[in-house]
């Protein structure tokens, strides 16, 4: 425990926060010291000035007495003053011209003050009796008759006062320094503690895995916020890593099968004699297998490209009724082959800002899925319309088995295939592509349960139908949709109740 504490303390003292605190304390101390110095100097000089003024006032009074009443009056005045309690702290000494005592409460003229300047107004503080260490502010004067007068006031109070101030200041500064240092250590310790928690988590993550999180203290302070943000970042990273792992596993799995087949075939051919016709077939099959492998790569790259191209694609106003109609027409042959009744319903021209190739590809994948995974000889309806909010919607509706509710969030994952469709043609990338295209168009992909079957809807965020000219007639937009449109329809995938769908 002590060991940990001393490590903690060492860390605290090393920490940059503590260094900052020390600098702050130093600066603060210097300012306080200057302030104290100023207060001290101005207070003492004010007190001294007041004392001096009192001495001068008394001197003037004595001068007047002398002028009016002569030497006898002055002596009477001095005697009266020295007898008075109020003048206890005053010193009077009147001597003749050879410094012999005439009147006053000081018996002898201090030898070190003989023959000094008569109007030595700002006389140095002078100790009356060394034993008492009494301090005086004095004035010396010489009258026309040669008499000398020493007049002073006790400055002991001033001295004690300034000493008190000094002590208080020193104590104050010491206290401030101690308290500030303690506060610095405490604050730093807290900071170091929180940082150490983050460090420990980082180390744990580097050593073991992404499942550790930084503990929160529930104070909701900035540290908790940092921790929370880092934690959600970790959540995201963990999800991405998991996804990458899944995709890698799936790629590996999906590639192993054709590659193993190719290898086996080539090995067999190697041990067999050369037979032109068989070789021909083998090579053709091998190329077909390799094409399948390459197609997986192409699909992955295409999805990645769509996902990363968010800002680069130049979008135009495109007529989705036309695009969807063309897609349906293209799939007409496939539907016919499958015995599926494929029909296209649209009563109006609906436009969105987008990319024709991508929308075509996305709708093609949806129609392809509906035909492949719908009921054999069933119905597939494709609709293009505006919903009540004026958004463009492409719906692909089948009457097949649907997608179990539990599987719905999975079908957009790359390579994800429902168990029952594992043996049909396809690579599990179709809906990933649809999702990527939708995301690029700020559109939502919704899966809704049919009765029976599945309805997949591509809901576009904005409708630029010329019949409702709310939007300016611009035909060239770059990828970003107008702000007020896209904020309310953030890119998300809605999964609504039971349904079906797989991936081509």
């Amino acid at each position, binding site marked *: 425990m002590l060991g940990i504490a001393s490590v903690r303390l060492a860390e605290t003292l090393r920490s940059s926060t503590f260094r900052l605190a020390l600098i702050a304390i130093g600066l603060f101390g210097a300012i306080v010291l200057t302030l104290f110095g100023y207060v001290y100097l101005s207070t003492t000089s004010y007190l001294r000035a007041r004392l001096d003024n009192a001495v001068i006032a008394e001197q003037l009074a004595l001068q007047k007495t002398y002028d009016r009443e002569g030497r006898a009056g002055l002596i009477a005045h001095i005697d009266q003053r020295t007898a008075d309690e109020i003048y206890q702290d005053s010193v009077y000494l009147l001597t003749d011209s050879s410094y012999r005592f005439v009147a006053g409460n000081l018996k002898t003229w201090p030898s070190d003050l003989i023959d000094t300047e008569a109007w030595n107004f700002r006389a140095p503080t002078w100790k009356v009796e060394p034993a008492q260490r009494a301090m005086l502010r004095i004035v010396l004067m010489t009258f026309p008759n040669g008499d000398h007068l020493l007049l002073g006031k006790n400055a002991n109070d001033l001295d004690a006062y300034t000493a008190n101030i000094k002590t208080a200041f020193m104590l104050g500064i010491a206290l401030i320094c101690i308290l500030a240092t303690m506060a610095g250590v405490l604050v730093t310790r807290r900071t170091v503690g929180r940082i150490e928690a983050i460090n420990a988590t980082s180390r744990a993550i580097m050593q073991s895995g992404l499942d550790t999180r930084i503990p929160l203290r529930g104070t909701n302070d900035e540290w908790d916020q940092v921790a929370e943000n880092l934690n959600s970042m970790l959540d995201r990273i963990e999800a991405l890593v998991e996804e990458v792992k899944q995709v890698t596993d799936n790629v590996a799995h999906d590639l192993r099968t054709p590659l193993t087949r190719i290898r086996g075939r080539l090995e067999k051919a190697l041990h067999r004699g050369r037979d032109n016709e068989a070789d021909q077939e083998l090579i*053709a099959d091998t*190329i*077909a297998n390799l*094409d399948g492998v*390459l*197609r997986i*790569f*192409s*699909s992955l*790259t*295409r999805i*990645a*490209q769509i996902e990363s191209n968010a800002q*680069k*694609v*130049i979008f135009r106003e495109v007529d989705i009724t036309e695009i969807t109609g*063309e897609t349906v*027409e*293209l*799939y*007409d*042959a*496939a539907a*016919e*082959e499958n015995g599926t009744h494929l029909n296209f319903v649209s009563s109006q021209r609906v436009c969105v800002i987008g990319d*024709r*190739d991508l929308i*075509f*590809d996305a709708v*093609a*994948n949806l129609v*392809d899925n509906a035909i492949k995974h719908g009921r054999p000889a069933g119905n597939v309806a494709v609709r293009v319309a505006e919903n009540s909010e004026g958004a463009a919607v492409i719906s692909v509706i089948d009457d097949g088995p649907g997608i179990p509710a539990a599987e719905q969030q999975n079908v957009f994952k790359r390579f994800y295939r429902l168990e029952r469709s594992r043996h049909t*043609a396809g690579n599990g*990338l*179709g809906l990933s*592509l649809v999702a990527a295209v939708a995301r690029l168009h700020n559109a939502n992909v919704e899966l809704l349960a049919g009765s029976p079957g599945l309805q997949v809807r591509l809901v576009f965020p904005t409708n630029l139908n010329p019949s409702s000219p709310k939007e300016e007639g611009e035909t060239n937009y770059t990828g970003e949709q107008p702000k007020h449109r896209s904020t309310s329809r953030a890119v998300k995938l809605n999964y609504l109740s039971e349904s079906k769908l797989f991936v*081509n």
Partner: protein
Amino acid sequence: MAAGHRHILVVEDDPETAGQLAESLTTSGYEVNVAGNGSDALSLGLSSAYTVITMDRMLPDIDGIEVMRSLREQGIATPVLIISALGEIDDRVRGLRAGGDDYLTKPFSFVELLARVEALARRSDTVIKETVLRVGDLKLDLVSRTASRRGRDINLLPREFQLLEHLVRNAGRVVSRTMLLQHVWDLHFDPTTNIIDVYVGRVRRKVDDSQSYPLIHTVRGVGYCIRAPG
């Protein structure tokens, strides 16, 4: 397949790929020059007249597209086939098909490359304005948009007619699925599903069923070719 004096410049920095390209193009009757980098490609392209230039996009010194632009600036109008990795396809590459040029994504099959080179080589040939196209006993009337074999009308949808017309215009040559998607549907991506096959399959049934010989042939792994027997 290729007649007359046809000269091709292959710009490719990987010697093995360049060798394979040169070999297959030579076998098809082209005379081939190879440039391993952008500056060689520029000087070769400027010094002699080529029918087609195939250009790898990733060259050690200059972007293939830049080489192409420089050639154009110097007045060289030779059609260019840019060969690009899928990840490098941007709007500039995509724009090639809108102009007279073309692109092909790596990895590609040589048959597809040949088909595209053929198509580009024909660009400079004079196109005769015909109103009727024939292959074997198949007759396409481009004015009335009708097709018939031995006088019997074939009932085709407009898009099916367009597809057949494209095949017939390229009779004897391989047309890849991507090329069909591009010319018939004006879509510029490589199809990941077999939908084109299904569509062509239906056209083929309409054209070839209960006839004395088939006209539409599948070229495995690449696409289709329409040709009369013999």
